[in-house]
């Protein structure tokens, strides 16, 4: 297994290099120019050209690529074209916020979704099943910004339990949790919807297996049958979805970040994109890829923990 992990990480290096190259060239093909963003719309063509020269954007793209690669390999990710701050630092500034939000959302999503899915499966085609179906889809059909505003209206304006601005400035754990509650819930709703549905489906499959009958014969309670015997067997698709969503979440939480006024990677990348901040985008994409690769590696390892029959070849 260790060998498997090492091999995967070895491949990940290749993947990262590929992403790096891809991103480097692709964003330079994109229309839009960072210099216009930096100089503003009054800038003349001359001053734009001047700035391009100063930033080295006028050099042959292959040369730029080599320079960038050299720097990247030495750990120098360059500085943001727009703000002039080091890319690494910008990312590290917001990364904790993203990780914290994602982690809490993940936990919430699973805590909400898994029991709901199990409940639906156990009560297949009865009221609880219909209720969870509709409710979970509610979370899914309303885009993050709509559900976010609804949450704010209810919990921050009407009930006044939480602040509208949850910037994540809290210092005590309780304050941080308070800041996190609504945005995490907002992200968790979508995740919970997926988890619920997948759990239900795979639970149905598992509940008809012979070993569930064995558990019954032992006199296991309904609870033990579901949570001890069936759940683990139906967890693989659930873990897949969770892992998948974790990867997607980190990139796609921008709407939630914006609505709840939280810093995060999502905002950073959308900002960088809107400003065509090449260096920033490059650095961010590498971080993203790294996260996705790690999350997926973790998912694969969890498969093995869940099901001993899974082999890492």
């Amino acid at each position, binding site marked *: 297994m260790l060998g498997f992990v090492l091999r995967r990480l070895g491949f990940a290096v290749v993947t990262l290099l590929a992403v790096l190259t891809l991103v480097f060239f692709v964003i330079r093909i994109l229309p839009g120019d960072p210099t216009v963003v930096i100089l503003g719309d009054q800038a003349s063509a001359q001053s734009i050209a001047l700035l391009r020269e100063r930033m080295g954007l006028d050099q042959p793209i292959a040369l730029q690529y080599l320079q960038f690669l050299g720097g990247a390999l030495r750990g120098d990710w360059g500085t943001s074209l727009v703000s002039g701050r080091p890319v690494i630092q910008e990312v590290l500034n917001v990364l904790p916020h993203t990780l914290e939000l994602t982690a809490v959302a993940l936990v919430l999503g699973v805590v909400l979704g898994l029991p709901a899915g199990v409940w639906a499966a156990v009560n297949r085609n009865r009221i609880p099943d219909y209720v969870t179906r509709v409710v979970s889809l509610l979370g899914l059909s309303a885009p993050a910004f709509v559900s976010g505003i609804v949450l704010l209206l209810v919990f921050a304006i009407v009930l006044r339990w939480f602040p509208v601005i949850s910037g994540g400035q809290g210092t005590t754990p309780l304050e941080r949790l308070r800041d996190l509650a609504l945005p995490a819930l907002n992200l968790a709703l979508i995740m919970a919807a997926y988890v619920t549905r997948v759990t239900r489906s795979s639970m149905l499959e598992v509940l008809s297996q012979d070993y569930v009958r064995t558990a019954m014969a032992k006199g296991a309670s309904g609870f033990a049958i579901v949570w001890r015997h069936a759940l683990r067997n139906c967890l693989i698709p659930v873990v897949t*979805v969770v892992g998948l969503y974790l990867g997607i979440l980190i990139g796609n939480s921008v709407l939630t970040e914006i609505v709840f006024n939280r810093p995060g990677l999502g905002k950073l990348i959308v900002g960088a994109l809107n400003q065509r901040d090449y260096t920033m985008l490059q650095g961010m994409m590498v971080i993203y890829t790294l996260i996705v690769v790690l999350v997926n590696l973790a998912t694969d390892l969890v498969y093995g923990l869940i099901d001993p029959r899974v082999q890492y070849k």
Partner: protein
Amino acid sequence: MLLAGNALRFTGKALTSNPTTLVGAIIFVAIVVLAILAPYISPYDPVAQRITIRLQGPSWEHWLGTDYYGRDILSRLLHGARYSLVIGILSITLAVILGSLIGLIAGYFGGRIDIVIMQVMDVVLAFPALILGIILVAVLGASVTNIIIAIAFTAVPAFARIARAPVMTLREREFVQAGYALGFSDLRIMFRHILPNIVPEIIVMASLWMATAVRTEASLAFIGLGIAPPTPTWGGMVREGFENILDSYSVALFPSLAVLVLVLALNLIGDGLRDAIDPKVGTNS
């Protein structure tokens, strides 16, 4: 052909065996019919602006209210259904087919093939939909086909992972080994024996991912890879509605509800299909 026959049979079984599936199917057909009939049954021109009656709530004249430009929301919903249905369904179908195929191959062969394929998928997955979208606009230009491609593209790695996971355990099952023993080719084992066993999960995810597809369409519209205004789409309507949500809830609410109803219908159908192809459904109490 065989598969198509099976599909028909299962659809029939799904519809007849479970009333909720039938409900789902009826809703879905209704949406499709409404979409087709949109030009004839819409009370108003979906693009005609009436600036004096902007952002109004539901009324007798405008059942679902009016939008930011005073356009009739109901009419826009009806017309928008056409694009949203086509985009949503086609893109998800595309993604499901491609993704499951990739996941199947990766999970089945495992080892190096798996690592390489899944790392490629990871790369695609790592690109946020927005960035992918912009790249695609830049490369392909904006058109309905390209939106479908873009949405499918973002969903392919997801379905690859969804398909691959169960394959990894299925390939160790004895009936797969029995297939080897019978001299079946890898292709046959993959498609005839493993695939049907992962279909339930895929169906469930696919019917869910529709919602994501409609939303992705909205965010792609945001960066320009969308149906250009004033043509209505549900995703676009939701996005517009969001900007004015504090002024009028109905602009965001009704398209969201429409998405909900569509996804619900598809999920009911999906569940029914899932059960229909599950030979053991309801075996244990």
